[in-house]
């Protein structure tokens, strides 16, 4: 079931009547979520991602715009009739019901054509439990389960009625690090097996990129960029998207373009044919640095962190906006930790130039 959002807007009247200015939580969103895909709504807190999710679920009424499931306009339809599955951030499992009762609960509400016999319901519930691997916890109460287990019960409850769209509100934020990795693989696997269109909200870019078919980056209610994770990583439309994706984060420098050459500090570090002369921001991915004897760019070396497969050089540079410039290089290349400076040459496709005012991306031919 594909989900289409058309000029979706949500304006919250401000809390205190006096000041009167409103909060535009979601500003004119239009995008289409293909059927059967796992979509990540990504952005810093307060960017409107949860509000969008709740509008899709029907729990929040949009101020403007339309929502379509397939070609049905569900904007006016109440949550009960939308056939959505929603997993809350703190799971919202009914505390007084066992795991089995929690999972069975949605099935017991089905009416008319979808009504099921008791046996049928139990079969479906056990299937869902197996799918999320909690079939051994059926008689437990939510208070007796760990965060991860509760998470999976919530997913099973959302899935069991085979909703048209599955929505997950920051599913991993309450889990410890180790469990987070394991659970996000679970979500990926479950989504693949069921093939259900799934939208999840997260502020952790690594999580979004690792399992999403498509990510939607948002900032202060405005849609920044949509696309496959790798594609958005490699082709950020603006500085915000570039800075937001990737760990360790992208290194940003103040620079200028003159005569087709990119100047950082005093050094011409890269040929940028076809770009008019102007001051620019320059974003260089950590993996975009290659240490070279006479590389065009020199940085002062502070330390070398060997991490096995590759090692990371911690350097500083006067033109850098952040105190440290971090690069990741192949561990076979040896760098003398005692050296004062190190020279790099840059991989062109790992360097992005942004307009100083609008911070929009400026393209240049990469040969």
């Amino acid at each position, binding site marked *: 079931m594909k989900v289409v959002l058309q000029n979706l807007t949500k304006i919250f009247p401000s809390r205190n009547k006096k000041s009167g200015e409103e909060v535009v939580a979601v500003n004119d969103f239009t995008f289409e979520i293909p059927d059967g895909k796992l979509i990540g709504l990504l952005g810093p807190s307060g960017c409107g991602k949860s509000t969008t999710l709740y509008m899709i*679920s029907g729990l929040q009424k949009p101020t403007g715009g339309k929502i379509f499931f397939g070609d049905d306009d569900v904007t006016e339809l109440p949550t009960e009739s939308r056939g959505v599955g929603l997993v809350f951030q703190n799971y919202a499992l*009914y*505390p007084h019901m066992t795991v089995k009762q929690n999972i069975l609960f949605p099935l017991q509400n089905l009416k008319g054509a979808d009504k099921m016999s008791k046996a049928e319901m139990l079969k479906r519930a056990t299937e869902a439990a197996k799918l999320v691997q909690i079939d051994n916890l059926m008689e437990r109460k939510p208070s007796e389960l760990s965060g991860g287990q509760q998470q999976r019960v919530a997913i099973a409850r959302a899935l069991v009625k085979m909703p048209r769209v599955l929505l997950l509100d920051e599913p991993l934020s309450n889990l410890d690090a180790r469990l987070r990795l394991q659970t996000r693989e679970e979500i990926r696997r479950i989504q693949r097996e069921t093939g259900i269109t799934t939208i999840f909200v997260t502020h952790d870019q690594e999580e979004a990129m690792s399992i999403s078919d498509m990510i939607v980056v948002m900032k202060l209610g405005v849609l920044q960029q949509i696309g496959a994770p790798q594609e958005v990583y490699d082709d950020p439309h603006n500085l915000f998207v570039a800075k937001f994706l990737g760990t360790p984060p992208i290194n940003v420098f103040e620079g200028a373009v003159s005569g087709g050459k990119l100047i950082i500090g005093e050094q011409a570090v890269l040929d940028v044919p076809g770009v008019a002369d102007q001051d620019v921001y320059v974003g260089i991915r950590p993996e975009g640095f290659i240490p070279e004897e006479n590389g065009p760019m020199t940085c002062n070396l502070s330390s070398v962190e060997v991490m096995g497969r590759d090692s990371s050089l911690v350097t500083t540079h006067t033109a850098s906006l952040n105190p440290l410039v971090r690069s990741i290089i192949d561990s076979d290349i040896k760098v003398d930790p005692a050296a004062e400076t190190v020279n790099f040459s840059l991989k062109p496709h790992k360097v992005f130039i942004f307009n100083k005012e609008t911070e929009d991306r400026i393209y240049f031919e990469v040969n």
Partner: protein
Amino acid sequence: MVDSKHQWKAWLYLAPAIVLLLIFTVWPIFNTIRMSLLEGYTTMQDVAGVSFNFGIGNFKNVLEYHGFITCLKNTILLCVLTVPISTFLALLIAVALNSIKPLQRFLQTVFFMPYVTNSIAIGMVFAAMFNMIIGGGARPDSVGIVNNVLEAFGFEYINWMNAGSEYWANIVVMVVYIVWNALPFKILILLGGLQSVNKQYYEAARVDSTPRWRVFTKITIPLLSPMLAYVIITGFIGGFKEYSSIVGIFGEKMGPVGQQYSLDTMVGFIYRAIGNNEGRASAAALILFGIIFIVTMINLYVSKKKTHY
């Protein structure tokens, strides 16, 4: 946890409460037990220096009184009827109040009004509603507001509380009065409880497209059960001490004209005994305390199993 050095500090904080309780609660309990075990004790004779022998005569005297069973029956019957009805009604009102936004504040205030209504006025209203005025003609001069409504719907008027009225009719009047009195406090507690239930459970229920009545029975009630247990337990404790409501309607005769004491309760018995035999009144009070204690223990036990924390 906190080491024992803090023992004395805890007792220090509790000191004022304990001292006052010792004087004004514990000592009266002792005195009540003392009086209950002095056979035939009355303060007047005590002042005159008469001495009483020590025994359980008062208790026997209370239990043998022919009216004692009626008092017990009435007390239990009223409790068993009014506590569930008032709790259920208060729950409905609280849920309804919680589900509306406009006028919610206004209606909340209205439901608090009984607190501010003087008990004399309440007694008068119930007289106007149920009392009949027997005049010269065959038919009573006025049959009361409730009967007017009944007749408007084509029913025969009922003799609710006048001479010759049926026991069940008197009970109906009392149940209406007691439930009416018990509503405001219960609504307050249950509405408070409803508002402390996490909103997200209701959102989850909506997502699961749960019909209204299932939300009410499967989510609201279970989550509210600690409050409900509390309201029911205090309801029973209060219910067993029912007295002023019956005096409010039927007066000191505790029953319709010609059937005095037919609606007497345990506390009614105690009040009649306080007049001149405090020994017997103390014994009756202790018996009542025993009953309330047992009923509350049962309630606590039942609620421990049923409610969910």
